[in-house]
């Protein structure tokens, strides 16, 4: 953040009060208070959200983003393609491949890629009649709450850059992620938890690691904070050995008192910020254990998600995500790895895919139902998708799988002001490219911001001489998705 002068601070305060008192478009009383207060002359944290007011009426308050890392196959899960079945085993006509680039492309010369049919059974489900394969029987039960987009496309065909693209709007590493932009723009409603929380399950973390939830050039206060579902949810949340709550309290009191004395001597407002940061840290220590204590969850809820208290699983993370948004956390992102089904050992489209579907299917359906039952789905946008999809062509390794595909893949959205029970976008007969309503990653990002009340072209930050934004120079709101 750039230092701000006194005058604009004062004016800003006036505008804010005006906004709260008179304007209809608001997020509620505490909405515009970022958890990580700070008002630093040379520093970066800011106690205020960057936006004085929302640009459009918000439909969603919070986001739960289910990031299926590795690139799930749209063909095995969502999109039956009779022509692809018929043409299975035939080489793809070279004209389709002209000018396209793929991962592992060097192998194409030796082994021209052949189209690959799908070994799964599809059925229509619900009132909406959405197609879902037998991989996801539970999700099939909630399709009427989902809105599918089958025509998403992206720019990069390698995992790490594509993930970073999906999160930050550019494949260049080190830019702020969506959660950081949102936290920066509108803050969070939680007073004792970070506004942007990251959860992880599966065999390993996502490629690129912390760069996926980095605050980039935005103030560090807006970075995604990884929570663990077991042990300390946040690093260093437990007091050191031997310090019980009373001693921790006494210690923090002494720190605060001495800081106040210093503040009186030198008059640096940064010290007041430090004092509030310690007060908030203390509140986090108090609320953290309660947050991850699932003992208050009814048995039936745990059963519905397939969760076991204390386990490190996607199911537990889904419950945790719901608990986080209940407590006002703005943006929760769940990573679940191992969707990269090239056909290597253990990574095939049969057992490999079954395994990961089994891990996510039931918890996802439960999350949608649970949010709905609690009246939270209206205001919580749930996003499902990977960094790209998979090719209509097969790839032969130890077994058969599919390569990374960036021209068309499926994502779905639920709640948060989206129109449920529809499918947007259509691809050609073999699912190679969109033929209707193509949706770029920047459009997805613009839409998520829009649902939160933000015009993606107006949430900017001066960086390297230009007004940088999440959607770079692109982005169109997917109007068909809006309810």
């Amino acid at each position, binding site marked *: 953040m750039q230092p701000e002068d006194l005058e604009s601070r004062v004016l800003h305060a006036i505008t804010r009060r005006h906004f709260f008192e008179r304007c209809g478009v608001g997020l509620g009383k505490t909405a515009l208070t970022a958890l990580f207060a700070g008002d630093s002359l040379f520093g970066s944290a800011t106690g205020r959200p960057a936006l004085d007011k929302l640009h459009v009426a918000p439909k969603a308050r919070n986001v739960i983003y289910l990031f299926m890392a590795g690139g799930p196959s749209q063909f095995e899960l969502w999109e039956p393609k009779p022509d692809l079945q018929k043409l299975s085993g035939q080489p793809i006509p070279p004209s389709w491949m002209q000018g396209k680039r793929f991962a592992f492309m060097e192998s194409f010369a030796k082994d021209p890629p052949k189209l690959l049919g799908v070994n799964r059974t599809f059925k229509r489900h619900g009132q909406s009649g959405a197609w879902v394969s037998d991989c996801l029987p539970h999700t099939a039960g909630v399709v009427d709450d989902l809105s599918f987009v089958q025509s998403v496309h992206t720019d990069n065909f390698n995992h790490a850059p594509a993930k970073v693209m999906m999160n930050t709007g550019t494949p260049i590493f080190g830019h702020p992620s969506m959660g950081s932009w949102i936290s920066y723009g509108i803050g969070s409603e939680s007073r004792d938890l970070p506004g942007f929380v990251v959860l992880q399950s599966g065999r390993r973390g996502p490629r690129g690691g912390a760069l996926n939830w980095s605050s980039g050039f935005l103030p560090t206060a807006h970075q995604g904070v990884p929570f663990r579902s077991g042990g300390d949810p946040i690093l260093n949340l437990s007091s050191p050995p031997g310090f019980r709550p009373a001693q921790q309290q006494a210690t923090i009191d002494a720190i605060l008192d001495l800081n106040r004395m210093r503040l009186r001597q030198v008059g640096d407002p940064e010290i007041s910020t*430090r004092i509030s940061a310690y007060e908030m840290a203390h509140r986090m220590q108090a609320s953290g254990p309660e947050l991850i204590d699932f003992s208050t969850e009814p048995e039936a809820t745990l059963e519905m998600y397939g969760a076991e208290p204390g386990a490190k699983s996607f199911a537990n993370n889904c419950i945790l995500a719901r608990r986080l948004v209940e407590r006002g956390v703005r943006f929760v992102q769940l990573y679940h790895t191992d969707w990269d089904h090239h056909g290597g050992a253990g990574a095939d489209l049969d057992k490999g895919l079954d395994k990961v579907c089994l891990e996510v299917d039931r918890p996802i359906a439960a999350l949608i139902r649970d949010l709905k039952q609690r009246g939270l789905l209206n205001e919580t946008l749930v996003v499902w998708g990977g960094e790209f999809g998979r090719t209509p062509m097969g790839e032969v390794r130890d077994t058969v799988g599919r390569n990374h595909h960036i021209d068309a893949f499926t994502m779905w959205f639920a709640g948060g002001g989206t129109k449920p029970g529809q499918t947007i976008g259509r691809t050609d007969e073999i699912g190679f490219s969109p033929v209707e309503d193509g949706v770029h990653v920047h459009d997805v990002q613009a839409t998520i911001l829009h649902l939160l009340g933000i015009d993606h072209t107006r949430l900017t930050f001066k960086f390297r001489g230009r007004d940088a934004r999440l959607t770079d120079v692109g982005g169109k709101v997917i109007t068909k998705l809006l309810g």
Partner: protein
Amino acid sequence: MLLRMAPLVLCLAATQLAAAQASLEEKRFFEEKVRPLLARHCLGCHNNRSRMSGLSLESRRSALLGGGRGPAVVPGEPGRSLLVEALRRTGELQMPPAGPLQSREVAVLTRWVRAGAPWGLEAGEDTQPAGPSHWAFQPPRQAAPPPVKDEAWVRSPIDRFVLARLEAGRISPSPEADRRTLLRRLSLDLVGLPPTPREITEFLADTGPGAYERLVNRLLDSPHYGERWGRHWLDVARYADSNGYSSDGNRPMWKYRDWVIEALNRDMPFDRFVTEQLAGDLLPDPTRDQLVATGFHRNTMINEEGGIDFEQYRVEAVVDRVSTTGEAFLGLTVGCARCHDHKFDPISQKDFYRLYAFFNNIDELGGEVSVEQKNQRKLDPMLEFGKPEDFARREAIRQQRSILEKELKAYQVELEETLAHWEEGLPREERASIAPQIRESLEIPPERRNIYQRRVLDLFFFAQDPGWQARREGLKALQEAEPTLDAALIMRELPQPRTAYVHLAGDFTRRGETVDPGTPAVLPGLPGDRKLNRLDLAGWLVSPDHPLTARVTVNRMWQRYFGLGLVETEADFGSQGTPPSHPRLLDWLASELVRQDWSLKAMHRLIVTSATYRQSSEARPEVSEVDPGNRLLARQNRLRLEAEIIRDAALAASGLLVSTLGGPSVFPPQPEGSGQFTQVNRKWKAEEGPNRYRRGLYTFFRRSAAYPGLTSFDAPNAQSTETRRNRSNTPLQALTLLNDQTQTEFSRALARITVARGGSTPSQRIRYAFERSLARLPNAEEEARLQSFLAHMGGDFGARPLGAHQVTGEAGAGQAPSLASWVAASRVLLNLDEFITRP
């Protein structure tokens, strides 16, 4: 007063401020004649951020609105315009403070006001790029330091520039900080460590003339100076110990880090420092050190992900070198011209790719890459270190290995032939006893098995053969016997240079025209009669008349001492950056750097011995009203310490610091589960020996899962160059300082040393620990607060001996409750805002 102004602003805005439509001719007059004058003489203070006296001259609207004294410009009426009055110096207000404009310049501005103050291109309008007349493209002017009224305050020429501005605004500078504050400030700034109790005593005892200068010299001579200022440079160099991107494996980079420390400690002239890093390999008969220096531009990331197009990531690395060179030396956002001509600065896309061509010929992987190349040459070019016999031994072992590998393969082929036979003869019971994962494959008829299943069975069968086992063991032993040699990533030119193209819209698959290496057209050029290389580029950057390199360098130094540079946008000296607050001082410093033969230590000495630097940092509310950002420097600024220095200060205060210089990066304890959120959960085995307590800059830096204690305090993520760190202030920082295991160790050590050496009474000990931490003694109120805390905790732990033992981490009986309360008090000290702040 400010509150009262707000409604006025609204009224004005509604009525008379609708911008008059200026004709094209008027706009041109403004852009060519008026804007450069405003930029050079006014905007340093009167911009949208600083708004000195409430006035910004960045737009017509804000000029007409004016500031605390009323409208600056009344269109058509020079006689009523405060701007003209101040420039003519006829009334009370006389601007600019540094001295009158030439009468020709005053005439231009007067004419402009008379013409109705037509503005040029407003923000948002499609702008023309800044022309060659932009201030930063002009060579620094050799301005003589201006006269001042209060001669007695001046300690260095720097002070004249600063004081002249303050006097013009009728602001007095702050008094000099007290000696303890100065000692702590200087120690933290120059070596990144707080003063030891002995250093405090010595400095306080040295009351003779020149004591301060002696202190400065001692600190500049300390080897820790190179660590402190080396780390600043490593931010710019985007240094890290791993490759970045996806799997983010280790890379041997620390020799470059040590080269930087060593070069700064020797006060290598900055022109040399730049040349060796950009082109050390092209110097005649380069030394090994000069090759290691070229690691600067090998800090680019390397993608190890499967299925990538190597050329794509090679191109990314070259692009990063161009952007880094632009920001680090030119202070220009050259990277903006990758896809199209720069929107605001005169840098064309072709300029970008001409710079690109300098860095395009490194012998690194790109284009078509075979699997062998990928495995063997991933990090090339590399320089390895070792005795000749080490190399010989490694070569011998590698040869031996390749022979044995061939033998093993042949043996396997033989064995495979007997596999079918073995399978047929396998008794039913034995078959049943085989592990299910293997039996699964066995049960598939041989002709229907896939590659994977065949491989499983092969291995299972081989593993039971003693001959195979012996051969495998032999190979393994050889592998382990292979010596690992120290190495460094360096630059090496390809014998046959790659052709460089303009990449249409920044896409490397779309080639435009070919380009030769060259420098941006707007800047003084290089002879064009031969093909240029990186050595030419380096020579060009550090030529004495280059308008940018010296300015950018001194500005960044200034920023480290005062929190902000004279040019606040330290990496953007272009038209979108903020103009300098003290343009003549900036130019004077830049010329001085060249005059001092690019000696950085000379510049440090010049800045830290100035009265400007030595001022107290205490707030002055009356000055903040007119200068809220403290851009006039009527006081010093308190600055939160950098991530590494917070650790270093705690290590020093607690007496744990192991001050060894350099060497491979180290692994201090980090909270459990820190690396769990990345693709490869790499091991982090916390050091048990002396390396547990090394300075923060030696902590192993993994890009995808950086050490949490560093990132919470805004250490850069090493993805691209970083010329200024954020200074955030967050609850996660509080949690780190309160609860991290390393902090527990620091507070225990500070407690032990306090009890052992700090005297016998609580009061003596409090003063001892306080001084160790903050280099000053507590006042009565502070001491009383710590007394009562100690008494409270002592009572608490006395009633709970088990808790006391947990706190001290020591088993034996005896004084546990008392020691535990000292651990608690030490913890308080190490958490104070003052502890993590440069005063």
